[in-house]
C-alpha cells in the first residue's frame, strides 16, 4: 500500500540531509512500527509523507496505492487516504472542532466524488465515535484542540482518524504526553480501526505503546535510514538494551 523507495530529503533552508535513502513498504492490514533515537529522521519522514512545507525531496519516491504522493498537495494526499496523527496537535482558536471535522470529512468525500454527509448524518456518526474515545460533547464544541489536555489532544487525533477512515495511518509519537490510562484509551481507538484494508505506520520511542498496538513489523531508524527490521521482538530488544547494540551491530 505505502511504498517508499530510496527517499532522500533535505531541509529546504539549509543544506542538511535528514533522510538518506529510506526504503519501506507497508502492506494493507499490517501495522509497522518505526523506532529510533532522537534525530534519526522519524518525524521528518511523517512530515514529508503528509506534504509539509520546508522539506525538499532530492531522490527517491513515495507512493500510496500506486499514487505518487510527492506530486500531491497535502489535502490531495489526505483525500487519497493518508492520515497523520500529529505528535503536537495544533490549537486553532476560533474554529470549532465539529465544524472542522465536518468540513474535512466532506472535503474528502467531495474530492473522491462521494456524496457529502448532511449535518444530521455527520452528527450521529461523530457522536457514536466520540463516545468510544470518551470525548464529550463539550470537547466537540470547543475550538480545535484549544484548552485540551495532552491526552485530549491525542484522543481528538484518533477521533479525526476514525471519522476520516483513511487507508494509511501514520501515528507520530502518539504516546508522548500520555499517562497509562490515556495510552490504553488511544490504543483501543487505534486497534478498533485495524482491518484488512488499512495500513499503519506507528512512530514511537518506546516499546510500551507497542504492548497495546501490536505491530507486525518493527523497523529501527538511525541517521536517516532504516537500519534493521524484524518482528515485535525487535522492540523488546530495544527496550532492554537500548539502541547502542543494534547500531553497533549494523555499523
Amino acid at each position, binding site marked *: 500500500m505505502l511504498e517508499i523507495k530510496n527517499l532522500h530529503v533535505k531541509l529546504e533552508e539549509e543544506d542538511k540531509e535528514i533522510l538518506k535513502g529510506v526504503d519501506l513498504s507497508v502492506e494493507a492490514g499490517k501495522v509497522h512500527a518505526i523506532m529510533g533515537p532522537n534525530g534519526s529522521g522519524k518525524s521528518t519522514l511523517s512530515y514529508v509523507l503528509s506534504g509539509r512545507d520546508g522539506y525538499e525531496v532530492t531522490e527517491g519516491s513515495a507512493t500510496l496505492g500506486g499514487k505518487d504522493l510527492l506530486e500531491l498537495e497535502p489535502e490531495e494526499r489526505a483525500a487519497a487516504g493518508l492520515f497523520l496523527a500529529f505528535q503536537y496537535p*495544533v490549537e486553532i482558536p*476560533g474554529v470549532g472542532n465539529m465544524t472542522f471535522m465536518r468540513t474535512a470529512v466532506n472535503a474528502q468525500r467531495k474530492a473522491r466524488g462521494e456524496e457529502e454527509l448532511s449535518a444530521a448524518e455527520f452528527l450521529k456518526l461523530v457522536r457514536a465515535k466520540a463516545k468510544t474515545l470518551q470525548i464529550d460533547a463539550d470537547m466537540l464544541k470547543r475550538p480545535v484542540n484549544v484548552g485540551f489536555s495532552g491526552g485530549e489532544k491525542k484522543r481528538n487525533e484518533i477521533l479525526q482518524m476514525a471519522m476520516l477512515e483513511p487507508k494509511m495511518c501514520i501515528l507520530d509519537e502518539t504516546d508522548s504526553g500520555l499517562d497509562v490510562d490515556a495510552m490504553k484509551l488511544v490504543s483501543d481507538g487505534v486497534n478498533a480501526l485495524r482491518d484488512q484494508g488499512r495500513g499503519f505506520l506507528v512512530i514511537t520511542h518506546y516499546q510500551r505503546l507497542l504492548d497495546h498496538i501490536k505491530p507486525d513489523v518493527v523497523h529501527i531508524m538511525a541517521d536517516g535510514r532504516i537500519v534493521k527490521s524484524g518482528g515485535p521482538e525487535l522492540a523488546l530488544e530495544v527496550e532492554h538494551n537500548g539502541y547502542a547494540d543494534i547500531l553497533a551491530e549494523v555499523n
Partner: protein
Amino acid sequence: MALPEVKQSATEARLASLSLPTAGCTRDAREAALARLREMGLPNRRDEYWKYTRPDTLVQPEAPKAALFTADEPMMFDGIDRLKIVFIDGVFSPEASDDLSLEGVQIERLEDICCKDIHWAKELYGVLEAGGQQPVARPLAALNTAFASDGVAIHVTGKPSKPISLIYNHDSESSDAFLHHVIRVENEAEVTILENGPAASRFNKCMEIDIADGGILHHVRAQGRDHERRAATHMFARLGAESVYKSFTLTVNGVLTRNEQVVELTGDDAVAHVAGACVGDGDFHHDDTVFITHDAVNCESRQVFKKVLRNGATGVFQGKILVKEGAQKTDGYQISQSLLLDEDSQFLAKPELEIYADDVACSHGSTSGAIDETALFYLCSRGVPKKDATNMLTLAFLAEAVDEIENKALAEDIVSRLEGWLKRRS
C-alpha cells in the same frame, strides 16, 4: 490661535456650497457647531489625528463620484424582523420605510422635533458632539451638526420587540449626504439599533446617544457594497450608571471609511464594548478611531478590532482609553489586530492609554501577522483545500470581534456575509 491660511481657505471652500437651515429649534446648535468648525478648521493631512488617513476627499467641496453597486446579493439583515427606516442618499423615504410606531419607542424625523416640541432631542442635538471635541478636534462631526439635512430622534422608553433598522440606500453617483441621529435610552429601557447600506457617494453621519442609568443599547452596523463610496461617521455615546453600550461594525468594501467612536462613561458600573471587523481588498482604506473616557468608578470598557487586508489594502486603528482622576476600579481592554494576507497590505495602529487613577486594570495590544502556516498545514492535512482552510482561519481570526455581538441571529448574518465575501475572493 488663528487657523493656518491653507486650512482656513480649505474650510471656507467647503462651506461655500453649504447653507444652514433658516429656522428650527436646532438653529442655535447648528450655528454654534459652525462657529466651532471655523475655529478648528477642516482636517488636513498635517493633523496628527489624520496622520494615517488622508482626509482630502472627505473635505473637498465636491463629493467624488461613486458608481452604484449592482449585484443581486440580498441586503444585510434581510431575514431579521425589524422596524425599517430608510434613507436614500441621505433623505428619509417614508414610502420605503415602515410605520414608525412601535411599543416602547418613539421615533420622529429630525425636522419634526421642533414643531412637536421634543425637548430631550433639542437638548441633545449637538451637545455630545460639542463635548467630544475635547481633547481632540473632530471637525467633520461639527460640520455634520451644522449641516445635517435629515435624521431621526429615537426615544427608547421600554423594550421594543424588534430592532430599529436604519437603512442607507445609495441612488445617485454624486450624492453628498449628512445624517444626524439622536437617541435617548431611558432607565431600564433596552434597544437594538441596526445600520446598513452604502448610503451615498460621500456620507457624513453623526449619532449622539444618551443612555440613562440602567439603559441598554446594542448597535450592529454593516458598511459595505458600493466600492467607490466614502464615509466618515461619528458615534458619540454618554453612559449613565449601570448602563450598557455595545457596538459592532462590519466593514467590507469602500475606498475610504473612517469610523470614530467617542464614548464617555459618566456613571458608576457602566459597560461599553466597541468592536469592529473589516475585510479589505485592493483600493481600500479603513480607519477605526476610538476614544473612551472613564469618568466614574468600576466601569468596564472593551475595544476589539480585527482587520483582514490584502492586495494593498490599508487598515488604521487609533484607540485611546482615558481614565480620569477618581475613576477607580476601571477595567479597560483594548486589542487591535490585523491579518495581512500579502506583503502589499498595511496596518497602522496607535494604541494609547492615559491614566490618572491608581487602582485600575488596563491592557492593550496590537498585532499584525500572516496566516499561521502550521494551522494551515494541519487543516490541509485533514483534506481541507488550502483556499477553504485559509478562509476558515480568516474567519477564526475575526471571531473574537464578531463574538461581541450578543444577538446570535445578527452574528450569524454577519458571519455569512463574511463567508460570502471570502468565497467570492478566493
